[in-house]
């Protein structure tokens, strides 16, 4: 039973030496990502779509830590993404003409990309801390309003700051993001999210979600844990924003509106609040759905006018699908469970402790 092992502090599958258990996922992920990079090197559209998908996965999985695991309703995630995007963008612009001469250009670019991403991520985490500390004492709707307000404040500040290009946005950011780099951060956020879920830290977050008063009575430092969850979540939102800024030619305030925040919330809710794999599946699904509908409708009407007409009902269809999904599965795709708990038969690995 995973819960029993969580108390004693060790999680994960048996059969792998303990010293290897921590880095094993990294050893598996790295070659996969590099092969993927090589495969996609000639397909800019596929790389772009995959990058967008990856950014959405990072956003959804990180928001799930706050909205799903901790049960706090934050709807300002795009604000943290914006902080990360702009700070990482500005950092990259400042370091544009610098290169590490002892490294190949491509590697040097990646090093600076990581520096920029960390700048964005840490700034977003700091913003998360500043917003979280006072506002996480609030509950439910009130927190939602504060985070909503924060997201809008960020957008308005950026729109009026010369250094961030005002409404025109930042352009000329080196487009150094790669599928491998984006994939690595996806991998990292999923790893962190799963590790939190399996630890006593995750147990405390669950307790807060289930009943905050009871959690407090059990000795959970509720404010502390909520702020920590918020900071981790904001950090990854900042990273996602930073990545976004390095494969999209121009970033402007229009990319980080309330609509974007809601899009991420929808992903988390659709996947099932609290389910990491649910957030991933929903993020993939909702990124690909509009594209899939586009190609489906394009295939219907070869006549340009008809194709255009049909294309216009693409978004209503998207909305309709969401409504149907929420009506048929109000708890989200996976509820609070993970993929392998929902469909154990698909996975040959035996379930532990049942």
């Amino acid at each position, binding site marked *: *039973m995973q*819960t*029993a092992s*969580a*108390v*004693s502090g060790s999680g994960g599958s048996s059969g792998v030496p303990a010293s290897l258990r921590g880095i094993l996922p990294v050893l598996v992920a790295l070659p996969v990502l590099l092969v993927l990079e090589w495969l996609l090197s000639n397909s800019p559209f596929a790389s772009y779509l995959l990058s967008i998908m990856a950014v959405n996965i990072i956003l959804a999985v990180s928001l799930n830590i706050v909205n799903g695991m901790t049960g706090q309703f934050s709807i300002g995630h795009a604000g943290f993404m914006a902080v990360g995007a702009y700070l990482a963008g500005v950092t990259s612009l400042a370091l544009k003409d610098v290169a590490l001469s002892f490294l190949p250009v491509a590697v040097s670019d990646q090093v600076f990309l990581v520096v920029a991403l960390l700048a964005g991520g840490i700034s977003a985490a700091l913003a998360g801390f500043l917003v979280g500390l006072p506002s996480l004492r609030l509950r439910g709707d009130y927190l939602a309003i504060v985070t909503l307000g924060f997201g809008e404040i960020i957008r308005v500040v950026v729109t009026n700051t010369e250094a961030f290009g005002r409404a025109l946005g930042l352009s000329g950011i080196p487009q150094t993001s790669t599928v491998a780099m984006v994939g690595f951060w996806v991998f990292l956020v999923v790893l962190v999210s799963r590790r939190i879920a399996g630890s*006593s830290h995750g*147990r*405390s977050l*669950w*307790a807060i979600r*289930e*009943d905050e*008063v*009871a*959690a*407090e*009575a*059990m*000795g*959970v*430092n*509720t404010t*502390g844990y909520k702020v920590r969850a918020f900071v981790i979540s904001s950090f990854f939102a900042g990273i996602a924003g930073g990545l976004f800024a390095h494969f999209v030619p121009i970033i402007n305030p229009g990319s980080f509106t309330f609509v974007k925040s809601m899009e991420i919330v929808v992903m988390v809710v659709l996947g099932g609040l609290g389910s990491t794999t649910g957030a991933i599946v929903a993020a993939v699904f909702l990124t690909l759905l509009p594209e899939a509908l586009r190609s489906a409708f394009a295939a219907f009407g070869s006549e340009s006018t008809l194709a255009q007409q049909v294309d216009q009902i693409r978004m209503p269809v998207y909305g309709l699908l969401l409504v149907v999904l929420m009506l048929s599965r109000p708890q989200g795709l996976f509820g*609070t469970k993970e993929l392998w708990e929902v469909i154990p038969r698909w996975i040959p690995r035996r379930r532990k402790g049942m």
Partner: protein
Amino acid sequence: MSEAQVKVLGARQEFAPLLAVDGVKVSYGAIQALKGVTLKVGKGEVVALIGANGAGKTSTLRAVSGMLKPVGGRISFAGEDTTGAKAHTLVPRGMAHAPEGRGIFPNLTVLENLELGAYLRSDADGIAADMEKSYALFPKLKERRKQFAGTLSGGEQQMLAIARALLSRPKLLLLDEPSLGLAPQVTETIFRNLKDVNAAGVSILLVEQNAHLALNFAHYGYVLETGEVVMAGPGKALLESPEIRKAYLGE
């Protein structure tokens, strides 16, 4: 506000001091819920707090367990001043609070609920032993340990709330309305279990609307009225007093 007149009935049995609440005041905004409550709980003692709705019973418990910050007065627990200390710093010192309405985690299993009770402990063997003890006390919980807590019956949920609170190895167990919404028979079972808990050396501060039940069970009782203690005395003495019989027992 000056010290209210407290009518004391009978002599109190001697216990070593554990909790002392001295003139504690609590306000929710402009509303003063506690106007200076003074009470004591000894080691191994069961103390009942009775009173009508809105008398301040729950507020008193919440102030004691650190979930509310008192605006005045002092609280000392196990020889330390704990006025205004946060709940998460009090739990490791031996304070366990089973909040009103049971406060179990409905979407976690019984076992996970119990594990959260031992949240601040790291002695795996001790936790396992205590888990067995709570299963011995409440055999139903063992049967249902893989079940979601939300699917338990009301009585079982209350048992779980008590068992979970006990897993932090408290010196003092704060119970808020354990009989709330339970059938009389189930309530009886729970109070029998609580007697065992007390016999094992855990002090209990109990808030109850069911005055008859609470005063029968408690060594000592306090009667709270609009944020003040108005009467105090050994449980049996309070039960026999005409005021209590009239106001709380409907006679």
